[in-house]
């Protein structure tokens, strides 16, 4: 079909394969990478080790199409020198394997797609801010300095998608609640208002996680369509706060109170770029308004704007707002608790620039909360030596006073470097 010129001969070589490995690789469309990553803390934390990351991981990804269905598997085999645990689980962070994906997908009717199994799920319009996306996040990876794709933790779920010309519907059913990989002190210390100090590895947070198939489940739904160039969506969630948002009366064990979220979003071209808006009403466990032990109802909203400034430079701006609804108790009467901020404002800035025919990419992302003057700055530079080899360096800085949202992680600020071989 094509002229077999020397320059292209290699990439077009589709002759019968000549080895077991190659046959296997082709049968399952094998690819992946091997990455070694180090992250050094920029400030010492007596509760933590000097490196926040020292790991090497091999990611293997395979996919096989059968007549009626497709199987996808992505698994990371991890050796992590910082973690104290070594387990044979499948969930990363101390386990030798981080199983990212293991799913079967099929279309029983031409307007229905089903995916069953472990999968990565994302929706919503925010850039590193999530309102209606209540799928599990891996906040530890995000703070420790792993690549941003690890911010999404896998979910064991059934996703059913229904399509029509009028609108589309996604329903995700998670038979057993899956929490975020939240900050519990084991790898990243956090501020504990009860002791007004940092809590880390020696005394990590203990939680009661809702468990039990079909009894402690989650349902997420998204109803969406396009209106000309605009994308509109409505969302629903019925489950639990994904990170601990309640304390048992002993003030020791944290838990995941019930949560419903109702929201909507809009995204499309406006003002010479892409504009987006999203809001969600967080309806916490009933009775939350009568106790300071459980996070109460909230309204969360964001507006975002992204545009290309030319010369392969992209700008992204976001403003987000969280409003806590009034509670029926007077927190000032109880000295054990600090009154939560009623309104929280957050600004983000992203700048990304590509250089040298996209061999080199530099980016800045900054979260900034003006009221508390705290924030999180992420700087990243990545250079591709070739299609296969990429070297990356990053700086994750948390700033602000210790009792603030980002400031509590000041001692987790790190300098990270990674070398990745793609195959």
């Amino acid at each position, binding site marked *: 079909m094509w002229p077999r010129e020397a320059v292209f001969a290699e990439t077009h070589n589709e002759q019968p394969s000549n080895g077991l490995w190659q046959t296997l690789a082709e049968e399952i469309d094998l690819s992946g990478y091997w990455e070694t990553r180090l992250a050094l803390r920029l400030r010492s934390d007596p509760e933590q080790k000097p490196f926040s990351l020292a790991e090497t991981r091999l990611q293997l990804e395979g996919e096989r199409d059968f007549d009626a269905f497709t199987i996808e598997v992505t698994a990371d085999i991890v050796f992590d020198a910082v973690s104290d645990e070594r387990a044979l689980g499948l969930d990363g962070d101390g386990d030798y394997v981080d199983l990212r994906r293991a799913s079967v997908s099929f279309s029983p009717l031409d307007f229905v*797609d089903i995916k069953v199994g472990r999968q990565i799920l994302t929706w919503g319009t925010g850039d590193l801010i999530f309102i209606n996306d209540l799928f599990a996040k891996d906040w530890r990876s995000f703070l420790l300095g792993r690549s941003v794709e690890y911010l999404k933790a896998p979910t064991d779920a059934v996703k059913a998608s229904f399509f029509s010309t009028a609108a589309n519907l996604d329903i995700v059913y998670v038979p057993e609640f899956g929490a975020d990989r939240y900050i519990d002190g084991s790898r990243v210390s956090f501020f504990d208002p009860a002791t007004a100090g940092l809590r880390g590895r020696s005394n990590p947070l203990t939680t009661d996680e809702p468990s039990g198939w079909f009894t402690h489940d989650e349902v997420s739904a998204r109803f969406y369509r396009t209106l000309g160039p605009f994308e509109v969506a409505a969302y629903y969630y019925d489950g639990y706060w994904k990170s601990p948002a309640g304390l048992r009366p002993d003030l020791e064990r944290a838990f995941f109170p019930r949560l419903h979220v109702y929201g909507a979003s809009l995204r499309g071209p406006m003002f010479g770029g892409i504009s*987006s808006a999203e809001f969600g009403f967080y309806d916490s466990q009933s009775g939350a308004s009568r106790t300071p032990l459980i996070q109460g109802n909230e309204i969360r909203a964001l507006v975002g704007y992204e*545009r*290309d400034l030319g010369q*392969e430079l992209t700008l992204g701006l976001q403003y987000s707002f969280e409003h806590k609804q009034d509670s029926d108790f007077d927190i000032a009467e109880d000295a054990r608790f600090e009154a939560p901020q009623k309104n929280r404002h957050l600004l983000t800035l992203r700048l990304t620039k590509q250089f040298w025919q996209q061999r080199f990419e530099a980016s800045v992302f900054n979260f900034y909360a003006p009221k508390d003057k705290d924030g999180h700055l992420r700087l990243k530079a990545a250079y591709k030596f070739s*299609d296969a080899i990429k070297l990356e360096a990053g700086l994750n800085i948390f700033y602000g006073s210790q009792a603030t949202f980002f400031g509590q992680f000041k001692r987790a600020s790190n300098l990270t470097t990674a070398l990745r071989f793609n195959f």
Partner: protein
Amino acid sequence: MRVFSVGLISLLLPQTAMAQAPATLSAMEIVEKANHAIFYQGGDQKARVDMLITDKQGRERTRQLTLLRRNFGASDTDQKYYVYFNKPSDVKKLVFMAWKNTGADDDRWLYLPALDLVKRIAASDERTSFVGSDFFYQDVSGREINEDVHRLVGEDDDFYIIESTPKNPKDVEFSSYKNWVDKTTFLPKKAEYLNDKGIVYRAYKALKIEIIDGFATVIDAQMENRNTGSTTRLHYFDINYDIGLPEDIYSERYLRKLPKAFLK
């Protein structure tokens, strides 16, 4: 058997109809025909593209992608593109989708499989690199023909030579460009972009043309950037026209679930 009959007619055309092509085509008519020949032939098209980017120091990078293009609206106006990345592995399974809207900005999406993220991307400067190559977005999806003033500046037995100057010079990096348009196929065989000093800094060559499904099609092309010393070679294969691409593959559903029947 529509494909067959179109093919048959086209095979006959060069000897008959084309030979009698009027000698007095205006510059705009030539540009319209050339625009059609490069970007709009057939109702839809599937092609695999091998890209080889060689920089000044001889370092090579490759990409392999599968392109699904379908025409919409009035002839030679709107189109939708679905671009699936087969190789290399750091971009494998990434999907780029663009709705080309005549007279307005494109709508563009990128699907990042590792995050299951459908990212809406801002319509960028059309004259920036397409996936790190020496081709620009505009070279791949077409520059609107009324953005330039076209003049027929030369002609021989084989080619029309068209010089195009931008109506808004501030929007582009060139001061003019020339196309050598083949008189039989109306495919440009060669193009040169000139800077404000009148020096050619960017040059395109169609290295091989084949008749596929009745349409004269460039299957081997090269873009050279003389400022950077980098060259990109594009090699098209597995090309098919009028395969009946459904309209709905250009939607969020098929970013997440690949339209595999058309990608093979």
